[in-house]
């Protein structure tokens, strides 16, 4: 007899009764394959998009971003023989955008403009004069600015998604109405901050820029790197350390690096998904084997060789796997589109369903599952038909080592398929975490079972749990990961925002910053009349700070405060408060101090450019160097960390008070519930501290959204897996429960046992879910905000509720059996 005959005459006839298990296998394989293929597809689509549009994304062949206007750089760009075709200077400023409807929430963002840079030289709107040669050069047209009118803006897709905006909507930017004419999927010519937090492009005058962006086109774009290295060496002493340089090539490189980071996070979810789908597929396979083990034993006892039975079952299982793999390949396109869309990249062209990457993926995963099924069917070879028929318990022979080794090989080959080793590393980390969690689950089960048995119920339940500790631990692990993914996808951003906001409330004495131009006396008067308490800081940008000891050279902002205007005081970490400062003493932020390794009593050189606009011809190189001493370090919570504070009365910086630069402004620190009631301050920019937090958390959005989708898949497969294992348990338990009733135990005993078992499930699942989620949240909190995470009771309650919901379904099924069928004693007779 050959296996085809067995397959035709036995396996095919069993298909109907095993249909549900096969459907479970198809769904599991489909989800695993679709997820695993879609992730490299997403990366590939984004990478090829970046490659095609590298120059457009960079804004020009070379882009340089400085925190202050750099006259030396301008001189260099205007000089002859450097291979420069054209250049344009853009500016970036912090601003807020909101929907034009009343009561809409403002969103902190980056405003980019190249409009006013055209007037910098006073040589007309569309041309820049090369001063040294008098030769006119065309300006660089940064994407989007070509035909942008004054009442029109372009926004990034991130902002559009955040504020639910679409083309032709009207919004308020810096309190002026604008119409959205375009939404950019990729950050074309955006500032570094804008790339992260979203941006608005507008043709408006920016008065308080925090960054100047120099877009430079070269005669020979291929020599961009050479040009940059030459520029850096020639302007070695004139460029601050926080200047950023980028070329089309570096944009692609930076994106690849970002994609790799994103891949690490996403592949964690992907690996979890794969492992749980694998658990599901294998548990379905083992269920099928356990369902048919008597048939297989009878066949063997009737002379059919084990190998034939194994091959027939193997062939039967290939069908759902093949269907799952092919459907997975097809659905990977849909999932890819979905993942691109939730990353705000909906317009990026996704790869064809027949792409080589998809085909290779389908073939690869089919081969992988074939090996898994081959390992699974080994148990037919290893089982003893006599033991099966006589119901003599056999030693379980799940080839765990083979599974683990093959899974590691799979992840290694998958990393090659994706094209990055970080996927393999993150998979190994995840397997390690899963193993640790499994061990903890196992240890907790054993620990609970080691408690002194106070009654027959505890004895019965704990002994049962202890005996099947590994299987229980696996189900609990599935429950734990369901909880953690749900919390990561749906609670984490809100949680981080709340935790950071509450820390801000504690550390910062204000919750709004208002910025008013120095020259706008009307707004200042109006604002001061309407608010009772405030701190008023006079801000000057573009000051170079030098520290010889560690060769520090960076652009800073200096804020001078009068004692009488300093109501809301920054919390001090060390040293003196501003109103106690002596002559030429300053207070720096904790972030600035840490970044530049500065301590109290260090002496810094502040170089103030006195500005051409005020002094007229020949004055643009005039500088004042002031020596200052660090007398205090304040807590800034990452908000404006480069702001150096001094006392206006006691510092030489007030010499410069006589010179009012166009970019000088007053920064008011306010503490209010809302700023909407403040009237007649049209030119004042209000920024809520919580908006800054939201914007910072926006960095996580792409990952969180991907985690949401993959988390849903993980929840789904973990659920199928739990149901499978639960069904296997239930089948065993049902007979045992009938025996327990038959030997004289009351129904109440079984009900109590069921409740106790569920309590153990809830306690362990809750403890592990809460512990794992709190650790992840803590790690992210430290990574993002440098703060330890908090243990939240609300989180504990959410996890507890979710755990109760998950376990309740299994509890209800068990209870139903106990109440209705545990006295079905005829089943004992059937078994006998």
């Amino acid at each position, binding site marked *: 007899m050959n296996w085809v005959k067995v397959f035709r005459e036995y396996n095919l006839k069993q298909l109907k009764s095993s249909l549900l298990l096969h459907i479970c296998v198809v769904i599991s394989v489909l989800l695993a394959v679709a997820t695993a293929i879609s992730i490299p597809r997403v990366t590939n689509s984004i990478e090829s998009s970046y490659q095609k549009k590298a120059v457009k994304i960079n804004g020009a062949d070379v882009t340089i971003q400085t925190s202050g206007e750099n006259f030396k750089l301008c001189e260099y760009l205007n000089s002859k023989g450097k291979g420069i075709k054209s250049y344009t200077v853009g500016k970036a400023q912090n601003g807020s955008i909101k929907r034009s409807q009343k009561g809409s929430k403002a969103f902190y963002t980056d405003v980019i403009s190249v409009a006013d840079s055209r007037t910098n030289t006073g040589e007309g709107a569309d041309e820049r004069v090369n001063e040294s040669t008098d030769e006119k050069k065309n300006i660089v047209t940064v994407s989007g600015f070509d035909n942008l009118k004054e009442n029109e803006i372009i926004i990034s897709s991130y902002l559009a998604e955040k504020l639910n905006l679409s083309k032709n909507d009207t919004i308020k930017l810096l309190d002026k109405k604008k119409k959205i004419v375009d939404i950019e999927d990729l950050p074309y010519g955006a500032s570094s901050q804008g790339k992260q937090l979203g941006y608005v492009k507008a043709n408006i005058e920016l008065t308080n820029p925090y960054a100047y962006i120099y877009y430079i086109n070269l005669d020979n774009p291929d020599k961009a790197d050479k040009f940059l290295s030459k520029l850096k060496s020639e302007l070695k002493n004139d460029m601050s350390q926080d200047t950023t340089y980028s070329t089309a090539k570096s944009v692609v490189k930076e994106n690849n690096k970002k994609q790799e980071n994103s891949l690490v996070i996403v592949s964690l979810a992907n690996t979890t998904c794969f492992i749980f789908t694998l658990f599901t597929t294998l548990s379905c396979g083992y269920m099928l084997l356990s369902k048919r083990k008597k048939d297989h034993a009878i066949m063997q006892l009737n002379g059919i060789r084990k190998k034939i039975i194994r091959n027939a079952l193997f062939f039967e299982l290939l069908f759902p796997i093949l269907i799952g793999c092919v459907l997975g390949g097809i659905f990977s396109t849909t999932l890819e589109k979905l993942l691109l869309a939730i990353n705000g990249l909906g317009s990026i062209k996704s790869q064809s369903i027949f792409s080589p990457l998809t085909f290779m993926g389908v073939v690869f995963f089919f081969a992988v599952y074939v090996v898994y099924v081959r390992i699974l069917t080994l148990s037919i070879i290893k089982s003893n038909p006599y033991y099966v028929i006589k119901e003599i318990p056999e030693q379980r022979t799940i080839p765990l080592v083979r599974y683990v080794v093959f899974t590691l090989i799979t992840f290694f080959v998958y990393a090659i398929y994706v094209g990055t080793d970080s996927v393999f590393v993150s998979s190994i980390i995840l397997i390690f975490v899963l193993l640790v969690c499994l061990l903890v689950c196992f240890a907790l089960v054993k620990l609970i079972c080691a408690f002194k048995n106070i009654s027959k119920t505890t004895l*019965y339940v704990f*002994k049962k749990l202890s005996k099947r500790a590994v299987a229980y631990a696996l189900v609990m692990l599935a429950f734990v990961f369901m909880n953690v993914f749900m919390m990561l996808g749906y609670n984490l951003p809100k949680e981080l925002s709340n935790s950071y906001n509450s820390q801000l409330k504690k550390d910062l004495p204000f919750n709004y910053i208002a910025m008013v131009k120095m020259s706008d006396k009307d707004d200042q008067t109006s604002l001061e009349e309407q608010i009772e308490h405030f701190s008023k800081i006079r801000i000057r940008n573009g000051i170079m700070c030098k520290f010889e000891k560690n060769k520090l050279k960076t652009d800073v902002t200096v804020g001078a405060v009068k004692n009488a205007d300093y109501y809301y005081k920054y919390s001090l970490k060390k040293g003196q408060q501003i109103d106690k400062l002596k002559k030429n003493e300053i207070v720096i932020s904790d972030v600035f101090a840490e970044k530049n390794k500065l301590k109290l009593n260090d002496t810094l050189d502040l170089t103030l450019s006195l500005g051409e606009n005020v002094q007229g011809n020949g004055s643009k190189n005039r500088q004042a160097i002031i020596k200052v001493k660090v007398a205090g370090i304040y807590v800034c919570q990452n908000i404006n960390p480069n702001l150096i504070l001094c006392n206006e009365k006691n510092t030489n910086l007030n010499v410069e008070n006589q010179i009012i630069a166009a970019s000088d402004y007053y920064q008011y620190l306010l503490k209010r519930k809302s700023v909407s009631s403040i009237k007649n301050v049209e030119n004042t920019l209000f920024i809520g501290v919580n908006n800054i937090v939201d914007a910072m958390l926006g960095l996580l959005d792409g990952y969180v959204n991907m985690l949401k989708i993959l988390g849903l898949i993980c929840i789904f497969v973990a659920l199928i897996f739990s149901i499978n294992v639960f069904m296997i348990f239930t089948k065993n338990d049902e007979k045992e429960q009938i*025996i327990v009733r*038959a030997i*004289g*135990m*009351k129904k109440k005993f079984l009900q109590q046992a069921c409740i106790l078992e569920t309590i153990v499930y809830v306690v362990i699942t809750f403890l592990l879910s809460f512990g794992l989620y709190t650790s992840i949240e803590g790690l992210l909190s430290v990574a993002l905000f440098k703060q330890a995470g908090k243990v939240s009771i609300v989180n504990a309650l959410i996890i507890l509720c979710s755990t109760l919901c998950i376990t309740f379904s299994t509890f209800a099924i068990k209870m139903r059996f106990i109440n209705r069928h545990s*006295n079905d004693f005829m089943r004992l*007779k059937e078994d*006998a």
Partner: protein
Amino acid sequence: MIKLHNISKTFKTASSSQQILKNVDFSVMPEDFITIAGPSGCGKSTLLSIISLLLPPDDGKITYNGVNVDFSSQAQLEQMRVKYTGLIFQNPNLISSLNVLENVLLPANYKKLGKKATIEKAKKLLSDVGLSEKTNADVSKLSGGEMQRVSIARALINEPKVLFCDEPTGALDQETSQQILKLLLEIARKNKSAIVMVTHDNDIWEKGRRKVRLQGGKLIELG
């Protein structure tokens, strides 16, 4: 002690129905040893299940010590099962997660003697069935005969008035069967329990003080 009056039972499937017991009258007296035999599928086990209150009859009446059994009252059934019956199956049906002693103690009523005394009693029973050395052993490591001995000890822990045995030696070899039977009779005598035993084995059937044969749904008492 136990009286069955006019008991009938029919098993129905989607396509057919088969009457297993037809108006059976039967009684069990204290310290009886009744053996029931009959061809396969004649309803021996069904009759045993009905007498031991595991299965409700379709028609007829059962009284335990003069009290009419109400099969709709789970509480009464549970109470009567604990008080009067001990069950021994062909398959020992032990709880695999519990050890030998724990299996015996599971149905024990601690309130009757107190926990300590009940444990001593269980140990004594295990010693009586020849398993005093294996009280803490894992049940999956016992032989078939040993497992059946554990189930006998378990059935006797609450000192039931009647021991219902459904082919208790059916899965055992001749020698072990004889040993188990001897043991059962000895312990039942010591506990003054009656035994109702379903068997296929003619030798065992012959040993019954009351020998019953079931044929065509009717009970024929042969001595």
